[in-house]
Every structure is written in structure tokens, then in C-alpha cells.
């Protein structure tokens, strides 16, 4: 078992120069719900992401508990009632870029990625738009997309006094570092 680990590490190390693997440990993820009574927004800077510009693989994950809200009760309800973070601790996306931009040249490249988007334990096959930016060799990615609560079995009871939007806007932004 030990050897397999070593081999894998060595193999990753050898491969990375040619493979264009980028990682980000502090991706910013925010969500925004606009409803008649109350607007809710929450932010996390604990997102993680891997981008492989050779294969086009792109992966994102964010711990549900890491979202910070304006009001502590919102955070409690978000974790306890809506996303059940004890059962489903992460939201994630794992997919492939449909077109792989040439990251050796500076520029802004609109991209789409198709893959599995998982929230609240429910996986949805989605194509998500985004932008890959390259500036002086530094690679970053932003994306904005909508998530419908009912697509992920997040129930919003009629009884709750403060309203929550049926569709939540998600913004993601990651500044990558080459994987060494």
C-alpha cells in the first residue's frame, strides 16, 4: 500500500509539468437569494478547485458549514433545515471543459463545463458557463449560475416567515496556483 502511494506521488510529480494542473484552496463561493421579504446572501472562502488544462477536467467543492451569513439564525437554518450539512457536508461540481483554452496566452476565455453538480446529496447533470482568465501566466476562473432549490430536494416550507427564493444565484471565483 505504501508503495502505491509513493508511486502515485512520484507519477503525479513527473506528470505535472506537462499536464497543466492548477489548484485553488481558497476559492470564493457566494450564494444569493432574492425574495420579497428578505434578501439573503452568504459567502465562503473555503472552496477548493482543481483545473486540468490538458484534459479539461475541472472540479469544485465547498463545505456547506463554511458559508457565513448576515444573521446567525440563517446559518443555523441553512445547515440544519435546508442543506442538512451533517448528512451532506459538501456541495461539488465535477466535470469537463467543453473547449479547452490555451492558457499559455493571456486573455479572457468564455468556457462551459459539463458534469455532475451535487448539492444536498442530489446529483444533477449540468452545463455551467464560466470564464477562464489568464493574466501574466496566472490562471483564474469565475462562474455565475442559478440553482433551483427543488432540483436538489431542498424544501422550503410555506410556514416560514421570511421568504427564500426558489432559485438561488451562485457565484464562484477561484485564483489558481500551478500544482507542484
Amino acid at each position, binding site marked *: 500500500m505504501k*508503495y502505491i502511494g*509513493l*508511486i*502515485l506521488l*512520484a*507519477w*503525479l510529480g*513527473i*506528470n505535472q509539468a506537462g*499536464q497543466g*494542473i492548477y*489548484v485553488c*484552496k481558497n476559492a470564493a463561493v*457566494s450564494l*444569493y437569494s432574492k425574495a420579497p421579504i428578505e*434578501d439573503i*446572501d452568504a*459567502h465562503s472562502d473555503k472552496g*477548493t478547485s*482543481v483545473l*486540468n488544462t*490538458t*484534459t*479539461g*477536467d475541472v*472540479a469544485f*467543492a465547498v*463545505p456547506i*458549514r463554511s458559508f457565513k451569513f*448576515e*444573521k*446567525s*439564525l440563517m*446559518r*443555523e*437554518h441553512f*445547515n*440544519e*433545515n435546508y442543506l*442538512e450539512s*451533517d*448528512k451532506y*457536508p*459538501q456541495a461539488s461540481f*465535477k466535470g469537463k471543459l467543453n473547449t479547452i483554452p490555451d492558457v499559455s496566452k493571456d486573455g479572457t476565455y468564455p468556457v462551459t463545463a459539463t458534469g455532475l453538480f451535487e448539492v444536498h446529496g442530489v446529483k444533477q447533470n449540468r452545463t455551467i458557463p464560466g470564464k477562464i482568465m489568464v493574466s501574466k501566466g496566472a490562471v483564474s476562473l469565475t462562474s455565475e449560475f442559478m440553482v433551483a432549490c427543488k432540483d436538489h430536494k431542498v424544501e422550503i*416550507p410555506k*410556514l*416560514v*416567515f*421570511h421568504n427564500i427564493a426558489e432559485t438561488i444565484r451562485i457565484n464562484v471565483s477561484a485564483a489558481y496556483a500551478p*500544482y507542484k
Partner: protein
Amino acid sequence: MAMLLSAAVAAAQTTRKDTTGKSSTDSLMNALTAPEKGEPVIATFKATRLIFTQTTETVKKKELNFMVIHRFGDIAGSAGGGKTFFGLDNSSDIYIGFEYGLTDNLNIGLGRSKFEQMIDLQLKYYLLHQTTDNSMPVAVSVIGKTGFKPYHVNTNIFDNTLNRFSYFTQAIIARKFSSALSVEVAPSYVANNIEYPFLVGNEKRYFAISAAGRLKFSKRMGIVLDYFHPFSSYRDNSVNPKYYDGLGVGLEIETGGHVFTINFSNAQAISEINYLNNTTSSWGKGQFRLGFTISRIFDFNKKHQSSY
């Protein structure tokens, strides 16, 4: 060793070329998202009160919790039945209280009971938070409380203002076993400046214990059970009046910013000092009552500018 490694690497490269991207992305993501250690467990309970007993929860900084707690009259027995509409005509106690978060862990509380017209002032501190990795398996909060009866009653012994002060201190030890089940045990100490009730043989000071729990059966509803027992030989042995342990069962419902508890219990009083001192009503004699708790959180944190 080096040769073995490089040979192995070469082998790995040739045999696994096709799956290279996938497996490296996956293993990298797994490495990056390694679970964080020891985060504090949130929402052990939904509110700061169950039926009798307070919970380990505190209101967060600059939040105000407004509580209305009510106990009706006896449902059955000599004071209950149809003539009092099963106790709904009477109120054995009404408590109106506020709790404010000085910090996330330190609360100041003020409340007033109908029972003995008592005013109580309390400080509560969330001492230890249970952690997700169980390096701290329980949550601990401590309470210090002073109760004052502003009006003298019955005997002239209570004319002396100092004799109308009582003190209460409690450590609440709770564990959230799962999202559904939270249980707490709370040893406490009661000190009255003068024996209350003012009867021969009564102790001024004694220990007591409370135990309570909540089992959720949906995300927003749960069953609450609450029990207390004062370690007082006077209360154990007194025949007239006879004292009873408190037992309450209730339904807890959360609706956004409100938490409601609808309960049945034998204790008449709501404040700890009152119910530990003076519970003389018994389930067995039909002296149990309907009660409810409404708890509403107001947030006084300045709205931060939305970044949108």
C-alpha cells in the same frame, strides 16, 4: 529503491495513461478537501429553553431573544375540569423575559414571573462547545441568576427586603448525538436568603438536578422531555404540603425566527428558583397543565452592504 520507483512510474504511465486526468483530479480534490478538524457543533438546541430547563444555547452577539412563557391552571383534579375549561381559565404562571447577547457566548437576561411576582436577572456563559471531531464531546453552559420578590407576602418576615432575594446557579452539560437527538443534564444549586416556603424544617440552600432532551421527528418539529428533582430532605419528607418532582412533555415547533413549545407539566412555576422551591402539584392528582413557550429572536447587527 530509486530504480524500483522509476520503473514503477514508467509502468504506471504506460498502463494508466488513459485514466490519468480523472484519477489525478479526483485524488487532488480529495487531498484538498480533507475534513477540517474540530469545528464547534451548532444548534444543539433550537432555543434557549426547553420546558423547565434552559439549554446550552446562547443568543449571538447583538441579538435579542424575547420570550413569553405561560402555564395554565390544573387540567384535572379539584381545580380543573369543565368548570375552569380544563385550566384554561386560570394561569398559574406567566413569564415575560428578554435575553441579549453581549458576545456570542455571554448573555444577560431579565424576566418577570407572575408566580411570586418575581423578577430575575441572569448571566449565562457558553463555556465549552461540543466539537465535530469529539475532542470536546459535550457542550457546557453556566448560569448565575438572582431572583427578587418586589412585594412582601403573607408573613411579615418578608418585610425585610433582603429576605426576598434568592440565588440560583447551574451548569448545563449537553450533547448533540445527532441532528435529531440532543440531551442535557444540569446540576444546580439554589440559595434563598430565607427559607422558602417559610415553613419549619425547610432548608435555605440545596442542590438540584435537571435532565432534559429533545428528539426531532422532522426538521422543524420535535418531542421535548424535561425533568427536575431538588435534593432537599425537607421536600422529600414533608407531608403537608407535599412536594413533587417536575416532569414535562412537549412539542417543539420552529418556524423561521420563532420557536414554539407546547407542553404539559405538573410544575406551576416557570423560573427555576420558583419551581425548585415550590412544586406541590402532582401529575397523579390531575394537577398538570397546558403550557407554551414562544421565543422570538431579533437581530440588531447592522446589515452589511450586500456585495451584489
